[in-house]
């Protein structure tokens, strides 16, 4: 295992990557009739997190250091961490506690911050948003709780000594944003093509450490949730229209629809 130490010349970086186990985005069954999440869905390491891990590994390869994966979830979330370890990350931390079931965004950020703080990372890498929640609110909360500057939606990251520079995607292009380490960044899925775990990597991951922490060890109490779901209703559904096979007349049908909508 690589041993990391903070270094003033920046030759080594200690990187924490937050990871999450999510329902497989490729499966389509989402809800049971009673509005609960379908439980038998396959769960996978969030594909966005794979890109975060890849970026972390590339930075480690360029600068030396250590990549630590931190996750929150039930026991089975260890599988997601293990996958990241097999890609090459050094070790994992899983926050797991029954009291965290249904945790809101603030509690999630507080628990992650408590687990990350003692690691004293130079860089915290998060995905811009998770595949299941897709709200992207944990990273800025985490940055605030860790006292770090944040650079979100990075499509490119450069580390030079103690300076981190990112290309941050915007609605009409990108911004170049820089800060000194330690800092938190969120990366887009396009930042790096995740590597496949090699057989050697998979074997090595089996003996890598995954430390498990509960809320009491983190010194956190659950507290009142910031928000509560009052109800879940069917949204006004669009009614399905006609579905036609293209037998050569499809273009005419589309033109008819466009004409009705008065765009041709």
């Amino acid at each position: 295992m690589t041993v990391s130490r903070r270094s003033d010349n920046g030759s080594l970086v200690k990187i924490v990557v937050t990871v999450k186990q999510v329902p497989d985005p490729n499966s389509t069954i989402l809800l049971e009739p009673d509005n609960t999440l379908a439980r038998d869905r396959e769960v996978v390491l969030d594909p966005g997190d794979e890109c975060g891990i890849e970026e972390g590994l590339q930075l480690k390869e360029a600068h030396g250091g250590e990549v630590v994966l931190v996750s929150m979830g039930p026991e089975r979330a260890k599988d997601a961490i293990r996958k990241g370890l097999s890609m090459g990350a050094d070790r994992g931390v899983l926050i797991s506690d029954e009291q965290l079931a249904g945790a809101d965004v603030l509690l999630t950020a507080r628990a992650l911050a408590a687990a990350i703080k003692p690691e004293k990372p130079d860089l915290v890498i998060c995905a811009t948003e998770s595949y299941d929640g897709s709200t992207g609110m944990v990273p800025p909360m985490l940055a605030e709780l860790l006292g770090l500057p944040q650079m979100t939606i990075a499509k490119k990251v450069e580390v030079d000594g103690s300076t981190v520079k990112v290309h941050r995607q915007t609605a009409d292009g990108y911004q170049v944003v820089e800060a000194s380490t330690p800092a938190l960044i969120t990366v887009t899925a396009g930042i790096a093509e995740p590597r496949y775990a090699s057989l050697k990597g998979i074997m090595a991951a089996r003996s890598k450490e995954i430390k498990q922490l509960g809320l009491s060890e983190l010194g956190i109490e659950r507290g009142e949730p910031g928000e509560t779901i009052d109800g879940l209703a069917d949204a006004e559904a669009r009614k399905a229209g006609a579905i036609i096979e293209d037998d050569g007349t499809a273009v005419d049908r589309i033109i008819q629809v466009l004409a009705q909508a008065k765009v041709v």
Partner: protein
Amino acid sequence: MANVWVYAELNAGKLQSTALELMAKARELGDVYAIALGTGAKAAAATLGKHGAKVVHVNEDKAFDEYVAEPSADALAALHGQHQPDLILFAFTPDSRDVAGRLAARLGKGLISNASDVVAKDGGFVARVPYFGGAKLASMRANGKPAIVLVRPKSFEASESGGTADVKELAVTIGEGSKRARIVERVAEASEKVKLEDAKVVISGGRGMGGPDNFPLLEALANALGGAVGASRAVVDAGWVPYSMQVGQTGKSVRPGVYIAVGISGAMQHTVGMKASKVIIAINKDAEAPIMKMADLGVVGDALKIVPALTAAVKAKKG
């Protein structure tokens, strides 16, 4: 009357349209105090007044333009120390998300993001949040005060209500400790001829387009129809097209007259950003794709053949 704050986002000195959308809802919910920070804040205050702000707190410190999130969070936290709002509305945009997250964490409050509506209920606020691509609508109650809610762009229609805001200087000093993540350069990529958010027709491509080399087929159709080209998250993630073209949950929300989804399966991530379109046409090789169930017209076939033929037909029709 409830005390409602609107974080009026400015970008490079320009008031964002989302701020005025929020104003339309905020003035239904209570007395509106808008906060405008950075270059252009005072000019924005006049506009915000016309849209119903009773008071606009402004500060034109350049730190708000130059540094990410922290100066704005400082200013809002300072103001929160003086006036306790019942509700703070943010737009669900990248910049406002960054600020809202930091502020909520600093205040130790929860927040509700990705909302499509906010209503007053039982002395507090309930936000409507689309889930599962908009198939379900959750009612989320904010337990703390202030309620912090981030609302999806295009959820409300901006309109002037007349009026003049009382403009107040927001007294805050931005310390060096908050000047950390610095924006050193803003780069505009090839600007679209028609803005995606404003286009009357949007043609979006997904993985079914086969590769980035086929996207010009969509551009040709968009040109013929006077529309704009969008994309699914999958192809943006794959690097085929820039993020500025992404339609969906964390991309842009659009509600054009006609939305043509080409080779897009219709994952909830995508549909939440386009389901409010008036007419949806889907072209996909898979008749079982979720997009087909919400399209007014679903065409099962080869997009790479249908799109060029459609472009030619549109051109012929328009003469």
